[in-house]
């Protein structure tokens, strides 16, 4: 609980200004804490008269903190492919491991993983733990969770990273909860704190309206899921060497109550928009399914994928897997071109961390222009065909 020392508080309201959650008010010259308080501690640091402190946080500190060592990356493998985010995480994992002076290990779970382990070593892993078994062909939270949990309990890494993908954001929370470990969701930045070696995990929350930095000071491992397309993979170095360890799999670890009957990989459109470098997003301004074809054409000319606003998805011009925003996917491509999208806060929440944003809209007042790096005010049905032909002309 946040405690206000009535004798020390001078009612200066500095804490009010420092509270991102609007949880403090000053009444009759005294700070009063409301229900919105998340105990983030920002006010405690800001108080010049030291009238604030947080109480009741007597966390039991795990006794063996120092015996946890090493940085681990769960490297997602599905339907014969390593997820690109796995290699990105080995890139940041390498940096963290070097900063800590420890080894970087990769965990590979699946079936028929072929040369993947060698690829992970060439991208920075010192050790690969490989669980390759026909029973792991399909992802289930139970089997993948059991394998990763057992490995972590056995080897005690200090840090465990995974991609913030459908798979990572599903089974990693289960693993963290089983271990009693702290887990930070959908991180966009990771650093090592100089004084104690703790992992500083930074993530957007409230639909990207605020950033929060999170630590797990009293327990190990420190776990994070990390947004795809944000970290940089290292270049392949085939001369790197590493150790490959095949994991002993007990029969109990391969059993699941949830049965996967079939895995349907979408064939027509590229639905995995979180991994795309270039996204063209279409909204209600396209007016019809046929109009929406312009978005597909532009995406094709740029070698990118198709995204959409909820209005376009609700109109059934394209499927829900393409929806960007608060109730769709969060994307961080290098380039996002928003066409006929007004820029509602719920849409912007899903795409504002794109590197470059282009907006095309006939309404100069549309809020999408507030987040755009470049904007064209004009009619889509005139602009898009010209844009497509100019791009295609250039590529020839």
């Amino acid at each position, binding site marked *: 609980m946040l405690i206000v020392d009535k004798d020390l508080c001078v009612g200066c309201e500095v804490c009010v*200004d420092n*509270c*991102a959650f*609007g949880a403090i008010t000053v009444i009759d010259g005294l700070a009063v804490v409301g*229900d919105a308080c*998340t*105990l983030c501690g920002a006010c405690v640091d800001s108080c010049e008269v030291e009238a604030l402190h947080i109480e*009741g*946080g007597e*966390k039991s500190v795990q006794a063996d903190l120092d015996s946890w060592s090493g940085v681990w990356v769960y490297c997602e493998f599905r*339907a014969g492919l390593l997820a690109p985010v796995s290699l990105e995480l080995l890139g940041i994992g390498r940096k963290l491991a070097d900063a800590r002076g420890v080894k970087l290990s990769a965990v590979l779970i699946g079936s028929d993983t072929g040369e993947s382990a060698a690829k992970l070593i060439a991208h920075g892993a010192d050790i690969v733990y490989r669980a390759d078994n026909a029973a792991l062909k399909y992802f289930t*939270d139970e089997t993948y969770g059991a394998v990763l949990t057992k490995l972590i309990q056995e080897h005690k890494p200090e840090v465990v990273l995974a991609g913030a993908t*459908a*798979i990572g*954001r*599903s089974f990693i*929370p289960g693993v963290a*909860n089983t271990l*009693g470990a*702290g*887990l930070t969701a959908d991180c966009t930045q990771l650093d090592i704190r100089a004084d104690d070696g703790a992992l*500083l995990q930074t993530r*957007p*929350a*409230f639909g990207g*309206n*605020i*950033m929060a*930095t999170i*630590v*797990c000071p009293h*327990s190990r491992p420190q776990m994070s899921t990390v947004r795809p397309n944000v970290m940089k993979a290292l270049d392949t170095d085939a001369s790197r060497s590493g150790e490959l360890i095949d994991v002993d799999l007990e029969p109990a670890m391969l059993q*699941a*109550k*949830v049965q*996967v*009957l079939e*895995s*349907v990989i*979408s064939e027509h459109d590229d639905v995995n928009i979180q991994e795309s470098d270039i996204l063209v997003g279409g909204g209600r301004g396209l007016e019809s399914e046929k109009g929406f074809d312009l978005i597909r054409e532009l995406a094709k000319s740029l070698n990118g994928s198709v995204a959409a606003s909820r209005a376009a998805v609700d109109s059934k011009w394209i499927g829900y897997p393409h929806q960007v925003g*608060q*109730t769709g996917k969060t994307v961080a491509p*290098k*380039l996002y071109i928003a066409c006929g999208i007004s820029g509602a*806060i*719920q849409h912007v929440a899903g795409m*504002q961390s794109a590197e470059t*944003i282009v907006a095309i809209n006939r309404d*100069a007042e549309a809020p999408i222009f507030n987040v*755009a*790096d*470049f*904007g*064209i*005010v004009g009619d889509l049905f*005139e602009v898009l065909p*010209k844009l497509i032909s*100019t*791009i295609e002309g250039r*590529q020839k």
Partner: protein
Amino acid sequence: MKIIVCIKQVPDAKDVRLDPETNTLAREGVQSIMNPYDQHALEEAVRLKEQLGGEVTVLSMGPPQAEEVLRQAISCGADRGVLISDRAFAGADTWATSYTLAKAVNKIGDFDLILCGKQAIDGDTAQVGPGLAIQLEIPFITCIQKVREADEKHLVMERMMDDGYDVVSVQYPVLLTVVKDLNEPRVPSLKGKMKSKKAKIEMLTAADVGADAACIGLAGSPTQVVDVFPPPPRGERAILTGNIDEQVEQLVAKLATYL
């Protein structure tokens, strides 16, 4: 069928903004709403009840005013509302939230199915559903986009994946988290509204559910927020000028690195 739906009260996204000057979330006029994903979880629960019979209980952890979302849920077809509320829960991360909800579920009694939203639009972690299932020692499946078959014993469903979907089958008990493609939530009926006004919301405290003080609130949370700040501002925006041909030319030139 005994179904429990977990519902979080959240600030309406369109009202939430961090003021870059004061570094605070603008709270004025911020409405509280039912987490949008939870509306779809509730709708599915009510449909399953209509199909198979049974009872839908809605559960929320939050401040006393979270009672509002439970009443709203009752107006949309839930039978029973339970609010677990205690100052001692303040500062709970997803581990402590899962623990607390699990304690409340045990207090509520037997269940076949628990439904959660995929994620809450404020905390945005998507971690409470899986965490709750682990605490209750039942299997879980996330991001359900379609229920293909449902009977007294089992469910066949589609779960959304990054590259398509998986068709999965499971027997009760199980916990599911759902995405918005699953269904179209109904609007409350007049009868539902009347019922929700009269309904008694059951209130629980940490002591009522026998929660261990070391496992709730700040003390029970392995993660700790150490800093909160506004996202880095975007660069200057530039509306291109000239006629459409010229604007398109300029844009393509600016985007040269991506072509």
